[in-house]
């Protein structure tokens, strides 16, 4: 059984259909990329997964448990963490407080402390800026903080929305290295990206979304050489 199974998922915004019945699955230990143009429904998919918007029909199963009727704050407890688009950190709180909030759903204090150290090891720059107000961090640091915050909930699967958005090329490479290392430590990753080249380079498999439908799927290494993908998303 896959860790995350999505079956015929429909989502509407009022009269507008955003997802027209998509199905995909994420197995434990995989990095899955969800790529597509603006307005294809990538972010909508992630929001439906994490309960931020209700699904119209279809099913989302995490470890066999149906998620479509579960409120957003319970989903984090069940092991799915969300790194929202555009680095939504808590601007006026310190780096430390941001990370503490990531562990809000957990009760095991000793392990939280351990995970905090792990996050600091992974992101040494956050350790240096522990008491700094998060809004004064640079864009890359804010992205790291958002990722660190998600890791603090000790998730089985982490879903990331455009982690490379608005960052310099060097930082983009750094962020993708971090994603690879997160996966190495045993956390499954579902990655939504517009930077298809980078995403396909680190992913195991990928799904291509177009106006609310999955139009293509397969091994990332195959897709990266696919002519239509090259033309549409890789600019070649």
């Amino acid at each position, binding site marked *: 059984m896959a860790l995350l199974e999505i079956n015929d998922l429909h989502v509407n915004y009022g009269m507008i259909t955003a997802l027209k019945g998509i199905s995909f699955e994420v197995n434990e230990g995989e990095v899955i990329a969800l790529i597509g143009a603006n307005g294809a429904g990538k972010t909508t998919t992630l929001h439906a997964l994490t309960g931020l918007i209700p699904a119209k029909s279809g099913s989302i199963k995490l470890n066999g448990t149906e998620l479509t009727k579960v409120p*957003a704050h319970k989903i984090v407890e069940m092991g799915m963490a969300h790194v929202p688009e555009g680095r939504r950190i808590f601007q006026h709180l310190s780096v430390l407080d941001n990370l503490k909030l990531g562990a809000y759903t957990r009760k095991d204090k000793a392990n939280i402390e351990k995970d905090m150290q792990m996050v600091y090891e992974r992101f040494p720059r956050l350790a240096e800026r522990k008491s700094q107000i998060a809004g004064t961090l640079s864009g890359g640091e804010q992205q790291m903080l958002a990722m660190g915050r998600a890791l603090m909930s000790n998730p089985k699967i982490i879903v990331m929305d455009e982690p490379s958005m608005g960052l310099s090329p060097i930082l983009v490479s750094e962020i993708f290295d971090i994603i690879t290392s997160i996966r190495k430590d045993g956390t499954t990753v579902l990655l939504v990206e517009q930077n298809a080249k980078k995403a396909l380079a680190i992913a195991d498999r990928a799904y291509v979304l177009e106006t609310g439908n999955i139009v293509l799927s397969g091994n990332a290494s195959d897709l990266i050489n696919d002519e239509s993908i090259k033309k549409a998303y890789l600019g070649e």
Partner: protein
Amino acid sequence: MKTKSKLIKPYTKKSFITYALLIAVFTIVQLILNFGKMSFMMQSLLVPLCVYSILAVSLNLTVGILGELSLGQAGFMCIGAYSGALFSSLMKEAIPEAMVRFPIAILLGGLCAALFGVLIGIPVLRLRGDYLAIVTLAFGEIIKNICASLYLGKDAEGFHLSIKSAADMNMAPDGKMIINGALGLNGTPKDSNFTVAFIILLITVIIAYNFVYSRTGRAVMSIRDNRIAAESVGLNITKYKLITFGLTAFLAGVAGVIYSHNFSTLQASKFDYNMSILILVFVVLGGIGSIRGSVIAAVVLTLIPELLRETIGNYRMLFYAVILIAMMLVTSNSKLKGRITAYTNKLKGLIKKEKKGEIK
């Protein structure tokens, strides 16, 4: 020394400075009172000053910490005032000791207001920004108007209640009126005094600081900063909004009880939207999110019109308005603000240098 100062967390320092300031002001006022140097007008202002400070601090929790605009503060104050005063006037004979009766009245008034806060909060907190402000304003007015048309009397048969008129109650002619519509409640025991009001203010400030720097406070501030991110780290947004709204209502209710026990008559018309807006002005000019600022603004802005009354009489509200506008300009002008902070930093540096010199 260095390790010790590191152990004291910055917010502990901040809150203790506020407590120390409050106690210092209280001691000075008590001294002046003891020497009989305070005018009667100033004496009559002491309890209201504490009441307004409590109201400002409690509203700051919703406006500053939760980041939602509420204009229903006077309504919650009204509920607290009515329930507290009703309890006290009914229990005047049963519990003659004010030291026992008054704390119960305060707690009861606070709890009644908190109950209404949560009940109103459940539907209302789904709204945000301007809409929330409008709806809370309306609720405040509804509460005020219901209280103003409330008739309650007691005769040999028991209690009689009406929201139409005194005659509608069908009370026996020898019965006693307890709440008389727009004329309000009469004969509330005058249990409030400056010391009690001050102690409650101090407790309010302690509650506020501990709330802001607690786990719950952090969660509430995270909702203010970014609702979607807060939801995505697993916070139950509605729960934390309700907790904050309820706490604000509770403290406003407590303030209402103290207010009502400062006068022997209580009328609902006092708790109109002017009161709510006035409290919001205290919060905004004191600095949104700053608890110490709320207290200072409440005290200063209540004292100014009263002091002006003695000097320029009828023109005082005109000057008061000018002062408010000037304060708003100064606090929101970044250039002026920068100059002021540069100046205060310079002063701080000078003081530090002097201190170092002393030690050497």
